[in-house]
Structure formats: structure tokens, C-alpha cells
């Protein structure tokens, strides 16, 4: 279970990236499946060739930015539908990732990675490493929240919220989309680089269906924490990512077939998207809340007695 939390926190970096495109830019970006693997591939090849692991990881971040930039250019300059632009980049990246890696799987077990100090100290799978991964995720989260409150960040949020309005105040919305997609995929690739180092290999298929995990994290998190305000909505991606991995872990422990996990993920996302629209759900939420307040009230009354 601790491993699920660890994984959840590493994938949270990817979820923050998905949050940037899906919620901030209102752009469902399918580049993620490709750029995640690109990050893993770049970091793995760098490390195997003797690059310091930190440098290789930073390089992975930039490789993801380039991938996002390609999708952004296809969409803004090529006038290609956003979904299609993402799919095109994703498919193209599959071949590029194979070229980078040279083969379909690159083991990293004997290499020195960012994770190996933890592993050698026997700290992986303990709450110490959870603490370390948590602080990493929170640090990235804080930078993103800070960014979204700067002048550029405000312009980017308005680009997703009301593009005509922000254009009338002199912002080139195309550039904002390019920047947002680049940042988002940079974070996704960074997450990929960390996952590869954590699990000890990079694999050509490791990004497949990942956008669903990212969306699930964002949506589940926001269903729990709400989306009132940027700080909460962004943090929800991190919380959602951990919850998602824990749910998957529980499903596996309950004896479900690992091959069914993709289906379960898809169903989870559908439920998280559809349920809140159902009127009975709001009433149910209200009932739960009422019961809580009723309990709290009766507790308060008991206290007074």
C-alpha cells in the first residue's frame, strides 16, 4: 500500500501537468501518452550513458516541453483540432521514443539514479520515501500555483476561460496555449523520468492510456476537494493521483485481473464525470453533509449537557 502512495505521488507530477491543460487551458491534451514515455526514455538513455541522474531528469523535462510545443503548433498554427493534434503527436512520438531508446525496454537496475540512494538505504516502500516524494510533489505544486497567480498565469487561465475577452486586452492566446502545453508536457515527461527511475526500467508501452489516469486524478481529486480556487483545484490533482493509485491497488488486492485495470480506470473516469450531473447525487451529497452537521450538532448539544 505504501508503494501505491509512492507511485501516486510520482504520478501526481503528471496529474498536475494534465490539470494545466485540461482545466486551465480547457484543452484535452492526448500528447501525454507519448510525452510521458519520452521523458522516461530520455532520462534512461542519459543515465545509461553516464549522465548525472539529475541532469538526465531535467533534460527529460525539456524533451516533454518540445513534445507539447509540437502539439501546440499543430493546433494553433496548423488549425488542427486539439484532440487530433494531441493524437498525431502521440503517435509520432511512439516511433521517436523507440529511436531514443533503441529497443523497447531499457533496464536501469544497475545504474545510479535519483532513486538509488533511497533504495540502497532501504527506504523505498517506507514512509520516509513517501515524505520525500510528497515534498517533491508539493514543491512542484507550489511553483505551479504561484505561476497561475502571476500576470502570465492570469492570462493563461483567461485563455481557457474566455479567450475573446483576454485577446481584447492584448494577449496572444496562441502563445498562451503553446506555453501551457509545453509546461504541461514538461511536467508529464518529468513524471515519466521519475517513474522509470523508481521502477528501474523504461518501457515503450509505459505511457499507454496514461491520459486516463491523469484525467481520473484531476477529476477524482476535484470531486473530493472541490474546485473553488486555483490552490485547491491544483492540489486536488495530487490528492486525486494518490487516491487513484490506492484504489487500483485495492482492486488488485481484491483479486481483480491486472489486465482489467485499464477498463476499471476508464469506468472510474466516466463515473466521476457523469455522477455529479445526476440530480440524485447532489441530494445524496446534501444528505451526507446534513447527517454530518446533525452528528456535529448533537455532539455539541451533548457537550453542553
Amino acid at each position, binding site marked *: 500500500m505504501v508503494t501505491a502512495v509512492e507511485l501516486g505521488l510520482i504520478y501526481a507530477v503528471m496529474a498536475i501537468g494534465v490539470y494545466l491543460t485540461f482545466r486551465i487551458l480547457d484543452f484535452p491534451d492526448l500528447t501525454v501518452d507519448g510525452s510521458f514515455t519520452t521523458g522516461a526514455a530520455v532520462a534512461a538513455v542519459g543515465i545509461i550513458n553516464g549522465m548525472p541522474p539529475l541532469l538526465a531528469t531535467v533534460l527529460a523535462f525539456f524533451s516533454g516541453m518540445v513534445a507539447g510545443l509540437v502539439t501546440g503548433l499543430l493546433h494553433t498554427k496548423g488549425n488542427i483540432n486539439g484532440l487530433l493534434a494531441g493524437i498525431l503527436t502521440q503517435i509520432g512520438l511512439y516511433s521517436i521514443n523507440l529511436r531514443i531508446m533503441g529497443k523497447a525496454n531499457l533496464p536501469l537496475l544497475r545504474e545510479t539514479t535519483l532513486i538509488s540512494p533511497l533504495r540502497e538505504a532501504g527506504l523505498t516502500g517506507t514512509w520516509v520515501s513517501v515524505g520525500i516524494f510528497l515534498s517533491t510533489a508539493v514543491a512542484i505544486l507550489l511553483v505551479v500555483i504561484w505561476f497561475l497567480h502571476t500576470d502570465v498565469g492570469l*492570462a493563461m487561465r483567461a485563455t481557457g476561460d474566455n479567450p475573446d475577452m483576454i485577446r481584447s486586452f492584448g494577449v496572444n492566446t496562441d502563445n498562451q496555449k503553446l506555453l501551457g502545453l509545453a509546461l504541461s508536457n514538461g511536467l508529464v515527461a518529468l513524471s515519466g523520468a521519475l517513474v522509470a527511475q523508481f521502477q528501474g526500467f523504461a518501457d515503450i508501452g509505459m505511457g499507454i492510456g496514461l491520459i486516463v489516469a491523469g484525467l481520473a486524478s484531476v477529476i477524482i481529486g476535484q470531486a473530493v476537494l472541490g474546485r473553488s480556487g486555483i490552490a485547491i483545484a491544483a492540489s486536488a490533482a495530487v490528492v486525486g493521483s494518490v487516491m487513484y493509485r490506492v484504489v487500483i491497488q485495492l482492486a488488485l488486492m481484491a483479486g481483480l485481473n491486472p489486465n482489467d485495470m485499464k477498463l476499471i480506470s476508464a469506468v472510474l473516469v466516466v463515473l466521476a464525470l457523469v455522477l455529479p450531473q445526476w440530480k440524485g447525487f447532489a441530494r445524496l451529497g446534501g444528505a451526507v453533509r446534513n447527517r454530518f452537521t446533525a452528528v456535529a450538532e448533537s455532539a455539541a448539544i451533548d457537550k453542553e449537557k
Partner: protein
Amino acid sequence: MLKLENISKTFAPGTVNARVALNDVSLHLAPGEFVTVIGSNGAGKSTLLNIIAGTYRTDTGTVTLDGRNVTRLNDHQRARYIGRVFQNPGAGTAPHMSIEENLAMALERGQRRGLRRGVTKAKRERFATELKALEQGLDVRLKDWVSLLSGGQRQALSLLMATFSEPKILLLDEHTAALDPQRAALVTRLTTEVVERFGLTTLMVTHNMEQALRLGTRLVMMHDGRIILDLDKAQKERMTVKGLLAEFEKIKGMEMDDRTLLQ
């Protein structure tokens, strides 16, 4: 301040749906002039505004703003000169951002945006003062999402956002048409106040003839993509709604006669 020269614009040219929206329109606005534009549906009023704002490109003709030829600039490149309020109260604000964040974005009109904090304490104080003047109780709701505001409040906020960074030109596109009479009266009053305060050169499109006569220093009537009547301040003050309708009928009638003669 604003110079339109021989502007023509045709939508879907070369097809059966081709529609001439503007036909050789020229219009000069002196600094501080407040022009109201009236005309029937499809007269070209909104197209004219969109041409000035850069949303549409001209087919022929030039747009000069404050001595600078902006004909080939995009809407966001012209935005530093132009403040704009749309008919739809939702169009001028970002609904899922707070009032103070919307104002902060508006304050940066046409500036290079960097990584400085968007809403600072100093800005917040300024916003509160400006909002107080709107008398909408928004000055104590700086952190509320704009989607929580009523249509009238949003339009008042849009007006403030469009003007308080002091653009060269203010474009108003039937900005009171979607409001109930009371709110419309309020936004109209705020408009005159703000135009006077900043001495803005203003172009206001309206369907309401009475409003067009009451506001501004000059009145322009459009029909079939052309300016058919241009009244200066003195002429406008003498004009009545009835008189405008009569002028409109007369000019339309003359056109008919011309066409009949040509045939």
C-alpha cells in the same frame, strides 16, 4: 484619433451567400468625440466595430489609430489602443476568475506580461476604490468569481475593465441591449461618467434611437453597409426620434428612386 478610409468588407465573397457588410465607408473621429451609431439589422454597425477592433480584416481601405496605420494588426495587437464592451454581459469578463483577477488582467492591457504577482495589495486598494464608484457593492467582493455576478454587475465591471487603463478608443457594441431597463439606465449613466472622466474617444453602436440622441456628441446612421447620415453636435441636439425615422425613410426612398431610374 481614429481614421477609417474607404473601408469595404464582403463576407463569403464569390459565393451565392456573398454579403456586402461595408461599402466604401470613411469616418474620422476627433479626439474626445463620442459618436453613436444607429441603423437597422445588417446595416454594418457591428462589422464596423469589428473592423476597428481588428477582429475582421478589411478587404480594402485603411484603419489609422492615433496616427498609426493598424490595418494589418491583429485584434490582440491593437488591444493596447482599444477598450471594448460587448453586448453579451458574459463576453467581457472571465467567469471563473475573481473580480480582482479580472481587473488585474485589464490593467495590464497591451503590456508585456511577466512573472510578477498579478494582484498586489496596492492594486487591490485601487480596485476597491474604482469599484466603489460603480455603486454595485462589488468593492467588498473582490475575491468572488465573476460568474456569481448579475448581468448588470458584470456589464458595469466590463465597462470599468475596458476603460480604466485609458485606451485611445472605446468601442461599445450595444452594451446595454441585453439588460433590463433599470440596469440599462445604470450602465448608460456609468458610460457617460467614465467617458467624461477619461475623455475617451468613443464609438457606441445602439438599437435605441432615443439613447443615440441623448448620448454623445455626434450621431451616425448606417444602412446597407454605408453611412447615410452624419449629424454633428448642434444638428443632433435639434433632432428627434421622429425626425430620425423620417430621415431614414427619405434616404431609403431616394435609393429606391435611384434604382428604379437606373432600371
